[in-house]
């Protein structure tokens, strides 16, 4: 399969597509159809409970593709470097370096667990099936996926984890350090940087072992996208993201086209349009990796480039739907102490009431200086939540639309379950 074929087909201007929501709803069929197609499997899973349960959807899905994909497998526990890191992590206990929190989240994963990423790659692999030309040796017959796809799923998780770990570095430049603290923080940074590099280096060699250079290029571009995500828009001194200042719709620049997913995401027309900014931010930070991984899984199975593109869109939409779902979470229960300032509800609210931007500006030094209560009230009283739900539905529908391309089967049903579980009853 030539690179030019990949290049020529992809014209997924996600930024543009979601700038005009009507186009999306027209393009994609309502979600009801897909759900009914896989209702039998779904009923088994959800009958004891009226609303779909996330954890159950995930653990049912894990059974479908064999053992869970977590990279915390025995191989890793036995590795020298990881043992080394664990040893050093213990020294950090008692300090408040964010690496500890990242490590904890890796082990006790809740709703936003990252293992689910590798799982989705495996489910997509199984749902799509593979070309009959692939020799038996390369297949995991019991699970219905290829060994190479399993390796790819592991790479996806490693890249994501590496990114989260590097994101957790403390900026030592701006920090007002209290006595005794700098050593801990410096040491924590060192370990975080090295652990992230270790994961990245492992992804490099795992990818190289797949002996598919188009795949290496695609996945490397996902690493690049993750790095780019950390530079998008305004930041406080700890690099926490802030939304950019909203500008009225009349002065938005046209969104630029994006012809090839190997090219970096264009930023034309993003500035000041907070909905586009939300899409761009989360395509870079999440959608690119999941989308490119799904696309790569289909490439490994010998599917044509058109389906590979659909795989990319599936992962991308799923990641965005997921993100919108997480953004909404802060507004489902009691008022939280803080919430994401670059979440979709906040973006819609700010765009509608630009005068609220003064609260954001208060957080230029640190997001901790922000009056979250005032912003929370504004979001709850405005239409931001309703808009976010609508946005999430669009992405869910788009993802389901792709799912429909795959033959009916347990993996497809499990993916539909996972998508179905991303719903809040507000």
């Amino acid at each position: 399969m030539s690179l030019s074929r990949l290049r020529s087909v992809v014209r997924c201007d996600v930024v543009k597509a979601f700038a005009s929501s009507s186009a999306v709803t027209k393009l994609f069929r309502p979600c009801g159809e897909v759900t009914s197609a896989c209702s039998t499997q779904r009923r088994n899973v959800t009958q004891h409970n009226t609303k779909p349960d996330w954890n159950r959807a995930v653990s049912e899905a894990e059974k479908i593709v064999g053992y869970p994909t977590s990279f915390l497998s025995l191989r890793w526990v036995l590795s020298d470097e990881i043992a080394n890191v664990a040893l050093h992590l213990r020294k950090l206990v008692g300090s408040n370096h964010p690496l500890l929190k990242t490590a904890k989240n890796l082990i006790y994963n809740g709703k936003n667990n990252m293992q689910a990423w590798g799982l989705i790659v495996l489910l997509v692999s199984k749902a799509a099936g593979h070309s009959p030309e692939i020799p038996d040796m390369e297949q995991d017959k019991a699970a219905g996926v290829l060994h190479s796809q399993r390796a790819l799923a592991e790479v996806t998780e490693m890249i994501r984890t590496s990114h989260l770990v590097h994101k957790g570095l403390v900026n030592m430049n701006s920090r007002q350090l209290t006595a005794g603290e700098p050593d801990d923080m410096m040491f924590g940074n060192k370990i975080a940087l090295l652990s992230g590099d270790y994961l990245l280096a492992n992804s490099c060699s795992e990818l190289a072992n797949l002996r598919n250079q188009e795949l290496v290029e695609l996945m490397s571009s996902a690493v690049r996208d993750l790095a780019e995500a950390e530079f998008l828009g305004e930041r406080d001194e700890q690099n926490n993201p802030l939304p950019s200042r909203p500008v009225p719709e009349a002065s938005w620049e046209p969104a630029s086209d994006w012809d090839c997913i190997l090219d970096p995401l264009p930023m034309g027309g993003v500035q000041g349009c907070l909905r586009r900014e939300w899409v761009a931010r989360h395509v870079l930070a999440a959608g690119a990796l999941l989308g490119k991984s799904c696309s790569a899984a289909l490439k490994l199975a010998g599917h044509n480039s058109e389906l590979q593109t659909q795989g990319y869109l599936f992962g991308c939409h799923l990641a965005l739907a997921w993100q919108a779902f997480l953004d909404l979470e802060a507004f489902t229960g009691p008022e939280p102490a803080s919430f994401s300032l670059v979440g979709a509800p906040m973006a819609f609210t700010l765009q509608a009431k630009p005068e609220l931007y003064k609260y954001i500006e208060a957080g230029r030094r640190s997001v901790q200086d922000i009056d979250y209560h005032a912003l929370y009230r504004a979001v709850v009283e405005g239409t931001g939540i309703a808009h976010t739900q609508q946005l999430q539905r669009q992405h869910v529908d788009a993802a389901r639309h792709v799912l429909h391309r795959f033959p009916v089967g347990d993996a497809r049903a499990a993916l539909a379950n996972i998508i179905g579980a991303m719903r809040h009853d507000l």
Partner: protein
Amino acid sequence: MACLSSSRLCARVQDKLMCQFGHKVRRQTVFVKLKPPGPSPLRLFGKTCQRVTTCGPACGTGVHANTGSARRLASSLQSTSTGSLPDYGTQIVDPYRLLEDDLNGIYEDIRTELQKNTNQAELNTIATYYFDGQGKALRPMVAILMARAVNYHVYGENSALLPSQRQVAMISEMIHSASLIHDDVIDQSDFRRGKPSVNVLWNHKKVAMAGDFILAVASMMIARLRSDDVTLVLSQVVTDLVQGEFMQLGSKETENERFAHYLTKTYRKTASLIANSVKAVALLSGADAGACEVAFQYGRNLGLAFQLVDDLLDFVSSAQAMGKPTAADLKLGLATAPVLFACEKYPELNPMIMRRFQESGDVEKAFELVHKSRGLEQTRFLARKHGAEAARLAAEFADSPYQKGLAVTADLVLNRIK
């Protein structure tokens, strides 16, 4: 004897010939000398660097073993016994001048490649910061030199540099810079290459991300070469770099273990990049497995010599008022070759090594003991041995200006003063 045991460790595979002229080398004292004419001296990898004890198969035996061994012997002896630029037959080859056209614009090309891959202005600024053309471009130079030498070896006089080989030269510099950027955050260094280091100027998270970005772009470039073997060889570099960095966090209890640990770390942190990138260019030229292995061993020996000299300069350059911080490695808690050698004579260094020179006065005391011992001399000897081995391996390729350049490069690395 430290000298004996260490040379056994790293020169296990080297043949008698090597040992013989090893003795000659030891006798001569002038090592850190004024820079040779031509390119200015090099200092690239800060204090750090990588696997040595496993020297691999006996270097070079078997490949063209019967051609010109007498001449090689002569020239090797000459190069080591004079301690200065030897007379390589008729002309003195300056590799930088030889490759002027190939190296010209290499930093611009890297910057363009990075710029093409991001729409974030600040990311572009940080990522291109060290590609300002101020570096000595040792890695790209060695890669291109080897590429041309191997091409000449395989295809004869009319061979040209392949675009893919030049790409590998760029990639080697990019991987190197990505590791420098992460090193800067880890070591909190203030200056590099005569300007403030990245971690002083920018947010540390962004700096870490910029390092990841450079690596990602480099690995996209590798993938575009569409060679499975080259990708495997270069992905090994990244793994080695990280493993070397992890090795640097720990140390070993016993002296023998410690020296082996140091050499392995030196291989992984410095030599692997050079060795594997010259191997990659050899693979791209279509050379046979034997020639690729000679290229690899050349790079490995050159890299080891380079880092040993680096570790040595960390002790002596201050004495010569070079205007750089003294004993930077000691201050980072690292015991490099000179300290490990000095340990033989002054066992009181052992507890200091174990506590990573953290108690007050440790750094000064260790510095003094190293100078009182023969540690510097022994390090110099070891570096020289690896340099001589690199020159010997270079002679296995067909005679050409580039092949001579490889030998000269080994000398440049040994004779650099900063």
